[in-house]
């Protein structure tokens, strides 16, 4: 077998796979940290089963982590891995499908035993039955080598093998010539109190790295140092969507000079936002774990009434339970942010898989005429700015706001230029100023229809609110027909007026004619890459990505009028398509995928190719 090697490239796609107990996710995070420090741009995709610790060696128990990294702009974790590290037969077979031809496949031959093959529902051994012919197989006894490396520290077999992930990490760090320091530091911290495990993991990491260097083996790997990406001058860190969302919320609290109460009930994949915020009191937010989603949204609303901004967070099924209380927030005109980390449904569905299918619920999913502003984040890092925008709308317009993100964004990470908070405008609230005279809290700002955010403790604005229809002026209960019409119109206008504050919709890339690919949320990375490729191949296509879904940007209708056709790719059955037809009366072509998996770039390229025309040479003036 010839010496296996990767053809040199600007970026590579690497996939780690093993049992959910093998520490695959940690391994991936460590590699991510290293490649970030190496100055690569990157995007990751953790892909783990619903089971906490699925039985070892089974197909459904496989946990995987994929990263694309390199010296160019990276917006997706990559369609087809260049390198797969599979810790066992199951990890190999379930990931084969996605590999590109000639991909490097690193396996531990000693794990391909009768019994392990059976666990993976394999009748024949892939190492022998030719199913790997299309790839470059690199057999490495990772298990045995790890055990040898850690022997000095007197661990049992089980504990010794738990160091395997760091051994393999070491090998990959060598292969792509990336720094070990972050991982070494991490191990030091993590195993402070357990010297044996610390030394063992350190040894494993170094041994894996050394294995790459030492040339005396049959088929050495060829090292592929990855060039640093051409990054704009800034400080960078990696961030997951859940992390960025949490950071954005606290940043918004600081910008609005308001403290926050984050009320939530755990649910996958939303819990991670709660976890990130728990313990961040020092930046002005406290977290309350409620008994259920209804209590969570209600406590958040109570907090908003009492003068701290209430925030609640869940996933589709949990948000369903919150809809009645969201109606109360609309009726009482109180600010609140509802974060929905979307997952695959209906019902329990596939909690660890991603989807964009709660847009209907967000925009239309309440009883009565109960409009609520809806915005969505496009990428892990974008969750930061989106969270700030959500808070801004909530307190400026005195309305609940729904922020949509999803499991993919929440869990995956990217290289993130650390924002400068001074670059964000402070957030205005409708709180009465110290000097203001007493009066009705239902005086409205004509620009927003927002009422005054007065709270208990303030003797000037002692008042009562409730879910029964209110007199538009006094706030007293009113069953008057004309008043209900006026209030209904006011609620409609209030949300419509948010658009007055939304910047004009821009085109991400491409000309203002031809095919418009109109997308929202987490498909950003794949669409951006697909449109880039299609533009390079001379197609007449542009990428428009919406953050504001309700209301839509005021200029969107006009902007789209310039295009011949509109393509709407979504991880649902056409929910943004509905919204565009409803609000703009346009007709659109749909690209819908509802498999629990994000788009791969190729899928979008294919759809664009079907709908876009080649670009005419343009005559330069």
């Amino acid at each position: 077998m010839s010496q296996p090697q990767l053809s040199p490239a600007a970026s590579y796609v690497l996939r780690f796979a093993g049992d959910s107990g093998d520490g695959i996710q940690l391994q991936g995070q460590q590699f991510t940290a290293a490649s970030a420090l190496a100055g690569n741009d990157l995007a990751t995709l953790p892909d783990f089963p619903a089971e906490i610790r699925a039985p070892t060696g089974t197909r459904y128990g496989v946990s995987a982590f994929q990263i694309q990294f390199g010296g160019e702009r990276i917006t997706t974790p990559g369609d087809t891995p260049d390198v797969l590290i599979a810790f066992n037969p199951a990890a190999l077979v379930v990931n084969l499908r996605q590999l590109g031809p000639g991909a490097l496949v690193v396996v531990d031959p000693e794990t391909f035993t009768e019994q392990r093959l059976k666990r993976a529902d394999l009748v024949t051994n892939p190492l022998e039955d030719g199913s790997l012919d299309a790839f470059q197989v690199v057999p490495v006894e990772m298990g045995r080598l790890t055990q040898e490396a850690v022997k000095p520290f007197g661990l049992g077999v089980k504990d010794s093998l738990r160091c395997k992930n760091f051994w393999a990490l070491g090998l990959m760090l060598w292969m792509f010539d990336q720094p070990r320091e972050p991982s070494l530091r991490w191990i030091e911290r993590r195993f402070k109190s357990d010297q044996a495990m610390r030394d063992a993991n350190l040894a494993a990491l170094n041994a894996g790295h050394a294995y790459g260097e030492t040339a005396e083996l049959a088929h050495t790997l060829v090292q592929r140092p990855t060039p640093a990406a051409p990054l704009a001058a800034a400080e960078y860190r990696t961030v997951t969507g859940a992390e960025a969302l949490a950071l954005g919320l606290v940043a918004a609290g600081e910008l609005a000079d308001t403290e926050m109460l984050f009320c939530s009930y755990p649910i996958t994949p939303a819990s991670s936002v709660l976890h990130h915020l728990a313990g961040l009191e020092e930046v002005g937010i406290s977290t309350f774990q409620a008994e259920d989603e209804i209590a969570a949204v209600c406590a958040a609303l109570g907090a908003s009434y009492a003068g701290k901004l209430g925030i609640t967070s869940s996933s589709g099924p949990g948000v369903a339970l919150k809809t009645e209380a969201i109606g109360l927030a609309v009726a009482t005109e109180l600010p609140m942010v509802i974060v929905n980390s979307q997952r695959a449904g209906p019902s329990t569905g596939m909690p660890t898989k991603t989807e964009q299918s709660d847009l209907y619920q967000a925009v239309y999913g309440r009883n009565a005429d109960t409009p609520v502003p809806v915005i969505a984040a496009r990428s892990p890092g974008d969750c930061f700015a989106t969270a700030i925008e959500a808070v801004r709308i909530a307190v400026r317009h005195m309305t609940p706001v729904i922020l949509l993100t999803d499991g993919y964004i929440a869990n995956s990470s990217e290289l993130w230029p650390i924002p400068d908070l001074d670059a964000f405008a402070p957030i205005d609230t409708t709180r009465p100023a110290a000097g203001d005279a007493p009066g009705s809290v239902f005086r409205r700002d004509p620009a927003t229809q927002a009422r005054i955010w007065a709270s208990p403790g303030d003797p000037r604005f002692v008042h009562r609110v409730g879910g029964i229809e209110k007199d538009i002026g006094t706030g007293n209960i009113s069953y008057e027909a004309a008043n209900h019409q006026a209030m209904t119109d006011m609620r409609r206008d209030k949300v419509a007026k948010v658009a007055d504050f939304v910047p004009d919709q821009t085109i991400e890339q491409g000309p203002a004619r031809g095919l418009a690919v109109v997308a929202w949320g987490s498909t950003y990375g794949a669409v951006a890459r697909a449109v880039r490729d299609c533009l390079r191949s001379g197609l007449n296509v542009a990428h428009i990505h919406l953050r504001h879904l309700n209301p839509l940007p005021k200029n969107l209708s006009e902007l789209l009028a310039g295009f011949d056709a509109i393509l709407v790719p979504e991880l649902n059955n056409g929910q943004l398509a509905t919204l565009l037809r409803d609000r703009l009366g346009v007709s659109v072509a749909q690209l819908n995928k509802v498999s629990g998996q994000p788009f791969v770039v190729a899928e979008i390229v294919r759809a664009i190719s079907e709908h876009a025309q080649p670009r005419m040479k343009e005559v330069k003036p």
Partner: protein
Amino acid sequence: MNAPARTFKDYATDQEVRWCPGCGDYSILKAVHRALADAQADPARTVFVSGIGCSSRLPYYVETYGFHTIHGRAPAIATGVKLANPELDVWVVTGDGDGLSIGGNHLLHALRRNIDLNILLFNNEIYGLTKGQYSPTSRLGTRSPTSPGGSFDAPVTPGLFALGAGATFFARGVDIDQKGLPGLFNAAREHKGTALVEILQNCIVYNKDVFDDVANKKTAAERQIHVVHGEPMIYGAERQLGLRLNPATLKLESVTLGENGVGEADLLVHDETNPVIAQLLLGAEAPLPAPMGIIHRRPAPAFDAAFAAAKPTRRRVRVQDLLHRGNVLDRR
């Protein structure tokens, strides 16, 4: 204080009270006004949170901050209010349907956490606002639009439910008891933790006089016992009756003082801190008297206090600094 003392009238609002003429809610409202005046409560720092039901209309009639919310959720919303601003005096007004049917879970968890709320449960054993369907406290055999043949859901006893939830304060009174209620309300107010007060309330339209057996002025002395911490359990018009614990059956029995040598010394002494005594009282059935007053009260850490201590949301760190924690790649 220098400000002139507030009278109970100062706690009434300009809103017209919209209950049925003769509804027991009127007298409870009066007792609330009275209690607030007795406590000289600060309207700006007092909040009444209610759910939905006739009873839940009360906040509109109290000149403090108020939130008439949605059905069953008042304890959850009040929890948010209290956690956001622990300095507020937060009251919850709920009914047997609002608090124990749809709202049972939030009431359970408020009581379990022991957050400092004063919860007034208007128990009329019926759904008033929706026109008289039986409720979780309706007695077996209650005839209503949804139980034409009589109900057969065993009712829940609010006091026992509260004990099971770990309540640290439970008191009980009758709507017409203008003398007693304000005191109970203020005891609830002073209690640090979740205080639940059950008020037997007469829905004259849909469940008229259902409490007559205990509330009726004529027979009240024999049918009610007002328990006082540390005092023997005596009741009756001439305070001639008492309650004694039968050690064999571990059940309460009524005895006549003086008769066959029974004296005060033989009576059970009320210990409001002992849940077993509360359970004995609340589990007792007629002809034993219905317990009134502070049936259970014990000191325990309040959730809101622990929350405020553990999660003081004072900004000590700038978010900008937070952003720079961890591995940072400097490309400036």
